[in-house]
């Protein structure tokens, strides 16, 4: 198959980029794979680009470069096709509308895959007939604004398939009753680390992720105060960059000082190579109030660390088998987090047993295995033929009406607006 990914920005950093690179690299072993990046602001991708995958861009934002298009007049006008409900709307424009539209109208691929809601909407509405249209959801439907959910209900019926990273999110999409749209849950993949797994003998708890309120590191630091009271020989390292907005790092720093934990809890900053940090620990902690998937949980497990995680929606409970390869504790509860950590700190044999189980069970996230699941979805749709999804304006109108009926007045207004826009651009 010829498979084409549409990505916001392949040259930046982030979970979606990493996950797309992993998948594209695996698929490229057997298929013709390209990644089309809407934007390009660097010469080279920040993350290592997958081997054997063609990478190109639609809009050049390399400042001081000869092809810079950031000052194109159309790039200064707000996007109309790219939905307003997508948080990246302000970065999109009439220029992106035109370039993405033209790309999808002429695309020479068997399968086209969108990697965020705004791009999935483009794919649903503008892909030329005969191409299988897949929309990936890397976050969660319930986490989106009402506006975006309306836009999704309105446009996604013209997709062939939606893939989510959790079963819970797949259920949420199925509840939208998008007729004829296949919904599959396929988790993110994590490659086998290039380092030997952790020995499990160090007295170090490791956590990793951007320092933002949703990660609830305040909860982890407070819980660790209880750990230190019992086991002053253990320490906690939190890896991750500070938030660009707000000052979570400063707040955590003050909390550490207030609790007198400056000899035990360390804010490590950004880690270039997280695997090299996981293996120094013997236990990992996640205390988020929400995890769309829980990439760091899988990463830690693949490095041989059992994870104590809050049982928050949606990912952790689909990754951790509580009491077998890690612990799920009540979300938002300091005492529960402390008890979970101490249970594994105080019992070396239990910790080592769970570490081994974590190493074994996390193999199911190996990129080859995950790519096979995606490949099966693409292959079945391709074999069936994509014509069904692209039967022309009549079918499109039918889906639009259905989406509108589902989402009521707001979507109706949206539909009216979109018909108007169609009139204008025709």
């Amino acid at each position, binding site marked *: 198959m010829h498979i084409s990914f549409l990505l916001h920005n392949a040259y930046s950093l982030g979970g979606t980029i990493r996950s797309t690179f992993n998948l594209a690299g695996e698929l490229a072993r057997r298929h013709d794979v390209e990644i089309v990046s809407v934007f390009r602001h660097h010469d080279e991708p920040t993350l290592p680009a997958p081997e054997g995958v063609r990478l190109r861009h639609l809009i050049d934002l390399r400042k001081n470069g000869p092809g810079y298009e950031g000052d194109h007049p159309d790039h200064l006008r707000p996007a109309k096709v790219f939905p307003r409900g997508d948080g990246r709307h302000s970065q999109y424009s009439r220029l992106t509308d035109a370039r993405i539209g033209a790309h999808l109208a002429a695309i020479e691929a068997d399968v086209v895959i969108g990697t965020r809601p705004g791009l999935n909407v483009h794919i649903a509405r503008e892909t030329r007939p005969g191409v299988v249209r897949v929309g990936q959801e890397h976050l969660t439907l319930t986490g989106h604004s009402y506006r975006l959910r309306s836009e999704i209900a309105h446009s996604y019926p013209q997709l062939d398939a939606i893939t989510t990273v959790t079963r819970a999110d797949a259920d949420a999409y199925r509840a939208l009753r998008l007729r004829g749209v296949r919904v599959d849950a396929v988790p993110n993949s994590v490659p086998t680390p290039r380092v030997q797994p952790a020995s499990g003998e160090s007295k170090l708890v490791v956590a990793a992720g951007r320092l933002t309120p949703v990660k609830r590191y305040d909860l982890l630091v407070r819980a660790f105060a209880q750990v230190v009271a019992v086991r002053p020989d253990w320490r906690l390292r939190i890896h991750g960059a500070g938030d660009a907005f707000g000052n979570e790092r400063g707040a955590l720093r003050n909390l550490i000082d207030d609790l007198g934990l400056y000899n035990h809890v360390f*804010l*490590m900053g950004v880690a270039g190579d997280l695997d090299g940090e996981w*293996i120094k620990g013997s236990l990992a902690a996640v205390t988020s109030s929400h995890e769309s998937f829980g990439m760091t949980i899988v990463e830690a497990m693949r490095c041989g660390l059992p994870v104590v995680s809050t049982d928050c929606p949606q990912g952790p409970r689909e990754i951790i088998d509580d009491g077998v390869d890690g612990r799920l504790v009540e979300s938002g509860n300091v005492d529960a987090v402390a008890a979970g950590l101490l249970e594994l700190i105080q019992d070396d044999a239990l910790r080592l047993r769970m570490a081994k189980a974590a190493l074994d069970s996390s193999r199911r996230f190996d990129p080859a295995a995950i790519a096979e699941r995606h490949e099966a979805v693409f292959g079945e749709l391709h074999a069936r033929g994509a014509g069904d999804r692209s039967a022309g304006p009549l079918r499109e109108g039918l889906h639009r009406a259905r989406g509108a009926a589902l989402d009521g007045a707001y979507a109706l207004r949206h539909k009216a607006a979109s018909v108007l826009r169609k009139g204008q651009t025709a």
Partner: protein
Amino acid sequence: MTTTAESPDTGSTSAAPRVDCTADSAGGLTFDVVATSDTDATLVLRRHGANPGGEVRLPLTPAAEGLLRAVLPSTVDLAEGLWDVCLSFGTGPGQRLQPGVRDLRALVDREPGPDAERIAVRIPYPVRSGELAVRSWLRRPHAETGTLGFEGPSVTVQGRLYGSEFGPDAAVEARLRGGSGRVHRVAASTGGGGGDFTFTLPYAPLADGLDAKEWLWDLWLLPGSGCPAVRLARILDDVPLKQAIFVYPGTKAGSAVVRPYYTGANDLSVRVDAVRT
């Protein structure tokens, strides 16, 4: 109309080769480079900075198919400072290397025997530009700091001395930076044996008479057995730059805020900042 700007960049043809590093608990480092050995490949450690003080060349020998390995044993001296890591074929200056996997788990809680003659620490890490460098410390004797405690306007430091003996009158000196010659001395207690020491440094004398925006006091251990002063430092782990990670609370003393901090070389100092009123 062309819809896309075609660009030839296919795959990961990153310019600089990557090198994996593994540290052992004695201070030795192993470097693994993915390359073939058709020419004489050398791993070159080159002293970084304005006055390049030297070069250590380590032969790269085949360790597996397509893998070359160089070893820097703990017994080979690497002067204290920052060393760039380069790959050289033949006699050329070579090219800088990107860090691959760094397995530094053996460094996390290094505990050399208390009678260790000299302390050699080498921590490989990517510098700001992303290229690999090795930060080296070579100290004999060495005074390693551990936990810091705060009770009232003072700091209590626990540490361990390596490579020297305590006399009966061990002390710690805070020496004011800037050539004024001001020194403040407190006794260090060495009861624990095995090189352990602890001292409490009251803040008031450090802040007394503050006539500048800031004063920086460097802390030195005087073992007391005729041994010269030893700079206090924290180097026996895997963290090359302590300053932003090992952070301690500030305490009000007179019209100043006093707090201990680690310098760029991971030496322990105390800063006194004037409080604007």
